[in-house]
């Protein structure tokens, strides 16, 4: 098993009295795609922003260890962190409509990132931008490189954002719901693109999403988050075919099936997510609740498939 590229252990992020991420641990191996699933407020985006040092809220407290290629990112100075951001770890965000500065051309913005990290001429940076735009499937890149963001459609903008993220050949790409704001056909194209780019560039990808469909398409490993904690972790096959946590069961049940008997109504998980407290964060909404759930269960299991639930072993494999 190769050395992990990114290893996060016991990451905690607190905003005042609110704990957004509570002891999260996971790792990403080179070239691997990790799907991080959870609903809004589960802490999936915040934890990734924390990894990159992008949380700017005054009073936010971040602790734990984030080791990337042998360096603890949380202990780095600002300037050292800047050299990693955008060059070794790139991040793309949910809404491509607002992610680009409206007053500069696409090419300028890509070249800006290249020139922030490498000593190349303007000419060379621009050529690189054209090549990247071509690579992400933007037609006529020699002309489109001088277009402004508002002249691009949503899907095209997300392609441009991806091109920008890949401009320095990052070892790790963090994608925060990159397809959520797009329509369905565009979503599929962007996922195809990400898959192809991973094959070409060999970057590892952390794909944050609330969409089980996206995870099943692209992920090698899956991390299910709830209330700021990891509740289940395993390979895609394991999580999809033998899910062990009641929350994962709920997630998978709420995906509509195109084959098989038709259900009258899509099942939902009752209640709304609450903040992480003392006990298991999911206990309030769980139909399998036990007395033991007043205390938070540890993430445990065998052979790489882990879960955080007090249910007896035989009930987890239904």
């Amino acid at each position, binding site marked *: 098993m190769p050395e992990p590229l990114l290893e996060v252990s016991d990451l905690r992020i607190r905003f005042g009295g609110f704990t957004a991420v509570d002891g999260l641990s996971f790792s990403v191996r080179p070239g691997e795609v990790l799907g991080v*699933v959870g609903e809004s407020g589960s802490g999936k985006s915040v934890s990734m922003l924390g990894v990159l040092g992008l949380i700017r809220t005054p009073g936010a407290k971040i602790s734990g260890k984030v080791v990337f290629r042998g360096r603890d990112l949380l202990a780095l100075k600002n300037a050292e962190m800047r050299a990693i951001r955008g060059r070794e770890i790139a991040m793309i965000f949910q809404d491509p409509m607002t992610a680009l500065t409206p007053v500069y051309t696409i090419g300028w913005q890509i070249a800006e990132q290249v020139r922030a990290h490498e000593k190349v001429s303007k000419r060379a940076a621009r050529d690189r931008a054209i090549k990247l735009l071509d690579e992400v499937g933007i037609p006529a890149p020699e002309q489109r490189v001088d277009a402004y963001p508002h002249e691009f459609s949503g899907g095209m903008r997300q392609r441009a954002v991806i091109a920008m993220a890949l401009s320095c050949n990052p070892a790790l790409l963090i994608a925060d719901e990159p397809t959520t704001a797009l329509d369905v056909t565009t*979503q599929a194209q962007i996922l195809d693109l990400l898959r192809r780019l991973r094959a070409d560039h060999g970057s590892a990808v952390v794909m944050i999403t609330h*969409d*089980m469909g996206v995870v099943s*398409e692209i992920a090698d490993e899956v991390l299910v988050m709830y209330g700021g904690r990891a509740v289940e972790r395993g390979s895609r096959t394991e999580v999809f075919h033998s899910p062990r946590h009641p929350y994962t069961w709920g997630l998978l049940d709420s995906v509509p099936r195109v084959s098989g008997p038709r259900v009258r109504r899509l099942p939902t998980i009752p209640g709304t997510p609450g903040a992480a407290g003392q006990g298991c964060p999911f206990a309030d909404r769980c139909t399998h609740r036990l007395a033991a759930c007043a205390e938070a269960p540890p993430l445990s299991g065998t052979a790489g498939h882990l879960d955080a639930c007090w249910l007896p072993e035989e009930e987890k494999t239904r």
Partner: protein
Amino acid sequence: MTAAVETVAPRAARPSAGPWRQALRRLARNRSAMIAAAGLVLIVLACALAPVYAGSIAHTDPFTSNASGTAVVNGARVPVLAQSTEGLGLGVTPIGPTWNPGSFFLGADNQGRDVMARLLYGGRNSLMIGLSSAALCCVLATLLGVLAGYFGGWIDAVLSRFFDVIWAFPVYLLAICLSVVLLTSGLHVGPIHIDAGSLALPVVIIALIYVPYVARPLRGQVIALRNKEFLHAAVGLGASDLRIMRREVLPNVLPTVVVFLPLMTALNMLTESALSFLSVGVQSPDASWGTIINDGLALLYTRPAITIAAGLCVGLTAVALNVLGDGVRDALDPNARLRGGA
């Protein structure tokens, strides 16, 4: 393949205070806005009591000249207007501040009138003109803005072009044009008759010139509302245009109008003082803070108290109104904008 797992369970409806009450509560927690409101109340009270001050404390009529009057200062009786000792000795120098509330607290102007009493009476006019022109302006602007935004088409085209022209016209120049004409002849349109010297003239003029300032943002809001589902629903139910405008559109733009009111009052009061300073606002013998600053201009180097006091009154009142207005904006409609940041 795409299935969102967001689940939103219906939350139990909790009886909550209406939006106006909530905004009022937010406003009450805003300390600087509350201090400004208290200051305003003091200023308004003081000006409202102007006749009491003039009649019972200073015993003076602030509207007639008092060239041969006398006042008691430090036990000695001195004339209110003394022959000027500077230059050729041709002009007169009025008495300076005595700091005695009973007589010429802030001194006299060059017609021998008590400045303190005039300041209070002038404040009534300044505040009245500021507030009523702001109210008139907001009413007109709401009417025109809602009509333009709601009906669109040629109504909108005509009204918008009209707003554009007034918007591009420097406000003071427009006000000066209107004032020059109306101050000589008064305003006589249909059933409305306003005499040349009336205080209603500056009110109407100032209200008119600022209509686009308020109407333009409101029109934009109404156009945005026009595409909202609840409005389509009202149309679908067969509600009349008048009913939709009154019941659906108006309540939604009203918070913005309320935000504009204190800010417009400050702006209009400043405009009034500027026009009065240029002698095309409030006409003598009526006073306003602007006319008092103008009166004080000739005496700036000998009796600076006149100008300074009147200017401070305008400035402090405007500061209070603007701070209060910002508070109201934060509480009601943080995005409301009056031509830029003001």
